């Protein structure tokens, strides 16, 4: 990043600010669309300097400020609020530079308008990416408004303050909405200055969520709570078989049912439109559908596809000759294979779409993490330009990656609407959610190490990950796997080894399987974190050295910034978790550390065996995202990752039998309950010299599985190399 926050910036040119980027004046509100090109450039720069999990570098966030009639500043966000607190973060960044209380800002979903945001909402990078451009935009806005108010009220600009929607000084004030009537005369400042970290009044504060009260009152509309006039209810059935095809449908019984408007058959699915939700669901059960089941795949066969060296793959790290050193050091070598299971996202709001198909217009309300992917999919399916599309989004009931690549639902909903000539509310049943799911891929990590028993140093470390793909098959660009060789931003994220070891080897191989696979919270950091940090524990045990010491020994040799940050996190974790204090009987303790897009998360887990099951009883986690915009939000993300990590490490698993996903609902896909909550302690570290924050929504999940597995070994002496750990 060439822009540091305390250098003076060139302001936006007027042409860029108003003309080229477009301004719309509508009703009483001025809609300012800010600085696409300026923002895009800095975002692209950031994307290049970090691993963007969606693999797309050309994206530009869409941010608007509305000043509405009641003088509130409304930010329309292209990033969705999935529960991660992004809207609160955006409000904080804007309020900080506008120098107004956070309560004077509201953030609402932006939907589809303006330039595309191809990154969607994911990769824990919404706030990191917006940290500087959004503040620059808000600072520019502040100066414009101040200057305009000073001119209008004939007062000294230095005395002008913005307060609760009024601007001016002393008794001379004007309502923002009134001032905005003459937006056309506003002058773009030549220079804007954004605040230094030491000047922050809002950023860094542990603030509650801005969407807290409406959500507690049950008033926040999620996508599936929305409606359109004369809307009907739709339900669909897709092939339950991995490679199944729709052969025939006998709809005679379903069609006779009360309330059923139409049974709609498309190429690979069949659906029902009825007046009411219950009628649609009942009618769906009455359809007699014949599927061509395709090849009968079994779990073992699918797993067996994951052999090393069968596909081209991409080597992402090669220092020295790790494989040769391991091969030559048979007596002091260690080899192990780790496995992760297929996982479902299990987000509580099922994926739904409300769609209205008209002559040459499309209107949808979608619960998605990637509105522009949806728009592209609709464009290619229906040949309708984006100008003729209205895509609204709303608050989203959890994502975890599960909504990123599901483009077919809006398409299906539009076909249902087209068939009946009315808007249709399409909702997946929970069973359909599980069985037509895009799952986190199964994968194996082939680990190897050579150790010098005298010096207790690791001479060589290798991590070869063989996994299904998370991104490339799903992106609307054919042939990406051939072009790129591996999904290094998805599954392969986290293969890279940071430890100071002379011979390091990291490689990703993505195998083709018939299973629909997709991103899942933490992407590759979950399998790679599990494999590498469990394997580090194996090494520590083999040479009888404390697991903290082993890691610290391999982090101190250079002046690598990342290694220094990791050491600092470990030292804090060791103390905060009381690692060196004696344990109670029956308690196992394990630790792990991982870096995900430059955020460090290190964790100690304590476990017990209760009623024949592993139970996580205590967790201490240190997280370092460089800058903490809102410590309270960071804690919540860490708590969420810890709970989801415990759940996916201990019980969750999608399995396939006769080409069908066996799990259908929460009774056979076991997720954590309140009863599974451990005692949790979270410590946030920051870096003084940092210029921008890194993500917090996913990094805390990476160390969860390995620290639990290492704790199980500590207690039982059993090394578990496959997730979930399940029964004792």
């Amino acid at each position, binding site marked *: 990043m060439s822009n540091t926050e305390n250098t003076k910036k060139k302001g936006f040119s007027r042409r860029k600010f108003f003309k080229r980027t477009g301004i719309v004046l509508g009703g009483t509100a001025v809609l300012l669309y800010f600085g696409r090109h300026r923002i895009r450039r800095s975002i692209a720069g950031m994307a290049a300097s970090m691993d963007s999990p969606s693999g797309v570098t050309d994206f530009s966030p869409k941010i608007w400020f509305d000043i509405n009639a009641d003088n509130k500043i409304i930010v329309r966000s292209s990033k969705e609020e999935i529960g991660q607190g992004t809207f609160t973060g955006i409000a904080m960044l804007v309020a900080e530079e506008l120098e107004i209380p956070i309560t004077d800002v509201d953030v609402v979903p932006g939907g589809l308008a303006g330039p595309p945001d191809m990154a969607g909402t994911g990769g824990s990078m919404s706030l990191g990416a917006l940290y500087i451009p959004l503040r620059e935009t808000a600072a520019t806005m502040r100066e414009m408004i101040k200057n305009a108010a000073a001119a209008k009220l004939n007062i000294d600009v230095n005395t002008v303050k913005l307060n609760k929607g009024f601007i001016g000084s002393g008794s001379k004030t004007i309502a923002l909405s009134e001032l905005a009537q003459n937006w056309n005369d506003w002058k773009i400042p030549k220079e804007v200055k954004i605040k230094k970290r030491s000047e922050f009044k809002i950023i860094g504060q542990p603030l509650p969520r801005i969407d807290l009260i409406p959500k*507690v009152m*049950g008033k926040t509309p999620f996508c599936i709570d929305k409606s359109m006039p004369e809307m009907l209810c739709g339900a669909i059935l897709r092939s339950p078989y991995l490679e199944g095809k729709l052969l025939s449908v006998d709809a005679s019984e379903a069609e006779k049912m009360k309330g059923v408007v139409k049974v709609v058959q498309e190429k690979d699915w069949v659906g029902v439109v009825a007046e009411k939700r*219950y009628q649609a669901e009942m009618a769906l059960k009455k359809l007699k559908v014949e599927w061509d089941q395709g090849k009968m795949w079994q779990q073992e066969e699918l797993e067996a596809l994951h052999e090393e060296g069968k596909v081209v793959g991409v080597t992402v790290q090669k220092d020295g000759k790790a494989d040769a050193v391991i091969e030559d050091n048979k007596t002091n070598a260690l080899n192990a294979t780790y496995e992760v299971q297929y996982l479902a996202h299990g987000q*509580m*709001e099922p994926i739904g779409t409300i769609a209205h198909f008209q002559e040459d217009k499309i209107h949808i309300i979608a619960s998605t993490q990637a509105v522009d992917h949806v728009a592209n999919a609709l464009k290619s399916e229906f040949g309708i330009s984006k100008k003729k599309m209205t895509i609204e989004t709303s608050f989203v009931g959890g994502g975890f990656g599960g909504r990123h690549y599901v483009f077919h639902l809006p398409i299906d909903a539009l076909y249902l609407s087209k068939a009946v000539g009315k808007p249709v509310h399409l909702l997946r049943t929970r069973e359909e959610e599980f069985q037509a799911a895009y799952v986190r891929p199964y994968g194996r990590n082939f680990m190897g190490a050579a150790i010098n028993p005298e010096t207790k140093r690791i001479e060589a470390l290798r991590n070869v990950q063989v996994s299904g793909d998370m991104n490339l098959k799903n992106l609307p660009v054919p042939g990406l796997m051939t072009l790129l060789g591996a999904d290094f931003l998805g599954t392969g994220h986290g293969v890279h080894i940071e430890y100071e070891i002379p011979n390091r080897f990291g490689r990703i191989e993505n195998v083709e399987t018939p299973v629909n696979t997709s991103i899942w919270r933490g992407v590759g950091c979950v399998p790679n974190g599990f494999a590498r940090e469990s394997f580090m524990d194996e090494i520590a045990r083999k040479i009888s050295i404390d697991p903290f010491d082993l890691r610290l020994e391999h982090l101190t040799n250079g002046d690598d910034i990342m290694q220094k940050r990791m050491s600092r996190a470990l030292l804090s974790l060791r103390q905060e978790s009381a690692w060196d204090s004696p344990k109670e009987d029956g308690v196992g303790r394990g630790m792990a550390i991982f870096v995900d897009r430059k955020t460090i998360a290190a964790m100690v887990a304590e476990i017990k065996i209760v009623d024949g099951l592993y139970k996580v009883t205590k967790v201490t986690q240190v997280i370092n995202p460089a800058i903490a915009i809102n410590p309270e939000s960071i804690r*919540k993300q860490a708590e969420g990752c810890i709970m989801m990590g415990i759940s996916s490490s201990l019980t969750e698993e999608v399995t396939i039998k006769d080409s069908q996903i066996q799990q259908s*609902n929460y009774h056979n896909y076991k997720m954590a309950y*309140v009863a599974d909550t451990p005692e949790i302690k979270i410590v946030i570290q920051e870096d003084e010299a940092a210029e921008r924050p890194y993500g917090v929504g996913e990094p805390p999940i990476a160390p969860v599985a390995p620290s639990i597995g290492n704790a199980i070994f500590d207690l039982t002496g059993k090394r578990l190399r496959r997730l979930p750990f399940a029964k004792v």
Partner: protein
Amino acid sequence: MPANFKINGRSVENLDIDPMTPLLWVIRDELNLKGTKYSCGKSLCGACSVHVDGELVRSCSFPVNLAEGSEVTTIEGLSPDEAALHPVQQAWIEENVLQCGYCQPGFMMAAAKLLERIPNPTDQEIKDSITNICRCGTQPRIIKAIKRAAQLNLSQETTPKTNIR
């Protein structure tokens, strides 16, 4: 047979609906109260929790005819208004509990009932009683919020909560 019951103090009269329709869809689609959520549809997650004649009910698996003549309370009726919050909602705000918020109305309805049964529950009692599911991982804060609500309740014992029975 048309349905008749009360919801959040309001009468629903002669509603023309299939008597087997789950109460959830009646609440959401007929009465347009969207705070009660659908998630599993099989009584497994608690997102659809409401109170029927003072009992905690998972409305996705509760046919509307069983609510005939009853009093139904949903999240929208838990507090009379934002100025007089139910202690559970107050505690939920103070503990900044929610993430996506989708599962939360169900949790709050369950928590309100738990506190009637056990006014000052221990962590273990909360863990044993609340079987709702949250994917975002708010469980640690839910435990704290229930305990805080218990404290709020105990400290305002004298103020009766009008529409909670």
